[in-house]
């Protein structure tokens, strides 16, 4: 069969697969979950095939990029159907963040800045949800804003999720009194700088168009000195670096960070220098925070996929090095 024919066949199979499952979903089909036996079989099959790849490599046949891609895809997708759960160890920087929130008195005002957009939501949305949940549980007042245009929409999604919980419904939380969403403002780090003198000048209205003055929660909040704690969910610029440099360094704000795992390493210098109280790094940080808050959210659910994908990457690094050493450090292996 020619390559072209193979490609068309594969494409057709994918289309059929999608159609079958889509029709199944539309007609009310439930999600799929593997039984433990099947799960173990899948894992065993993956290990055996990896060993096979190792054998091939030792024999001198290097695998192509595409094979690596297929393995990564499988390692990320299949664990979502497995019924296992795992214990999550808590790292000190997550504990520190949780503790610093716990020491706040009920009624304290917490400013949460949503500085990310949907592409980074898989990592940051679970943190947002569990942080807001924690604030509400401890009767803290939540003020939301965004330096990224799509941030406040993400905040609304998180709020909706948290408030739909029965425990939260019982608290009878009111918009404007217990939480408020000030919306998005352009100007990147300059927004933070100007908030140092006046919140109202940057957010004359909230995202619904209600004027700042008529929101009881923020009416008396002039600037950072009226905020007890702030939390920044950040996926890049403008984000944590700007919050630390301006809000912390210039206005002495107490700041906690929720970062994508890419950004997190850079933030450890700030943690060390005492500029931030704690860091949630990546989906793992989110899962740790969820377990501190005794809540099973999406971060916890996805941790299995996460672990699997790490194992796959590590496996390939080992395979790559085995091949490298067996080839007598020939530079021929350097490319592909």
């Amino acid at each position: 069969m020619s390559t072209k024919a193979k490609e068309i066949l594969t494409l057709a199979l994918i289309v059929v697969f999608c159609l079958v499952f889509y029709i199944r979903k539309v007609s009310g089909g439930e999600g799929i979950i593997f039984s433990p036996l099947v799960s173990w079989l899948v894992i065993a099959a993956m290990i055996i095939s990896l060993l096979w790849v190792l054998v091939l490599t030792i024999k001198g046949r290097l695998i192509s990029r595409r094979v690596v891609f297929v393995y990564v895809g499988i390692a990320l997708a299949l664990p979502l159907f497995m019924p296992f759960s795992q214990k999550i160890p808590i790292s000190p920087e997550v504990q520190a963040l949780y503790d610093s929130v716990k020491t706040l008195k009920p009624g304290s005002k917490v400013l949460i800045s949503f500085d990310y957009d949907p592409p980074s939501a898989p990592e940051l949305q679970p943190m947002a949800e569990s942080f807001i949940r924690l604030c509400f549980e401890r009767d803290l007042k939540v003020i939301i804003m965004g330096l990224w245009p799509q941030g406040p929409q993400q905040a609304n999604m998180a709020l909706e999720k948290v408030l739909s919980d029965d425990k939260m419904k019982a608290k009878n939380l009111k918009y404007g009194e217990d939480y408020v969403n000030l919306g998005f403002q352009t100007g990147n780090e300059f927004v933070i700088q100007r908030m140092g003198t006046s919140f109202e000048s940057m957010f004359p209205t909230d995202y619904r168009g209600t004027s700042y003055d008529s929101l009881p929660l923020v009416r008396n909040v002039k600037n950072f000195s009226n905020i007890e704690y702030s939390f920044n969910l950040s996926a890049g610029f403008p984000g944590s670096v700007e919050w630390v440099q301006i809000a912390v360094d210039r206005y002495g704000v107490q700041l906690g960070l929720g970062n994508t795992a890419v950004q997190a390493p850079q933030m450890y210098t700030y943690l060390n220098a005492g500029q931030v109280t704690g860091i949630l790094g990546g989906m793992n940080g989110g899962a740790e925070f969820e377990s501190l808050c005794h809540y099973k959210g999406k971060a916890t659910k996805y941790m299995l996929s996460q672990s699997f994908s790490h194992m796959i990457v590590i496996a390939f690094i080992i395979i790559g090095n085995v091949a490298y050493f067996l080839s007598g450090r020939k530079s021929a292996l350097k490319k592909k």
Partner: protein
Amino acid sequence: MEHFSLWLAAFLTLGIISFLYKDNAWYKLTEAIFVGLSAGYWFVALFWDNFYGKFWIGKDEHLYLYVGAFLGLLMLLRLIPKIGWISRWPLSFIVGATSGLWLINYFSSNIMKQVQATIMPLFSTQYGAGFNAEPATIIGNLVIVFGTFTGLVYFFFSKEHKGAFGYTAKMGIWVIMITFGASFGYTVMSRMSLFIGRIDFLLGEWLGMIL
């Protein structure tokens, strides 16, 4: 419409993923849509957020905004080839302002702040606390001081990296390599999470396979 929306989103998602296999017509189509759509998206966003939201609404109250509009106008003179060189004026303004602001901001945050954080008592938890640090902290402090010192030596440009100086610089690049390794390792995790998000869309929201 809802079916169409989901299938369209899935079509575009899979189109990008198909690039992993090889460059193909599907990817070329999605790439073209992406480039055109995102350029247009930012065009609209900048028009409404910056031009309308910042300038048009605020111009009567804040007269200084006219300066921005004037600079923008000078920039647009580019469209008239004969006097296009005037657009260098707003550009020099921006470059000048950026240099001034960055000079001082990075001096305080990257130099002052980081040097301050590096200067610490090695055997105490903080200045004046006496020799109260635990062995792990002391080792940590030593590692930080050693790493920062050697790392900075690596960045010396005006001295040849030879002799003792060269060895120090070499250790500096080792520390930097460890830093890169750790960052890389951390990022592997982050990147995996992102694709989990897309799988959640494809297999969950679209095909309804995930519980």
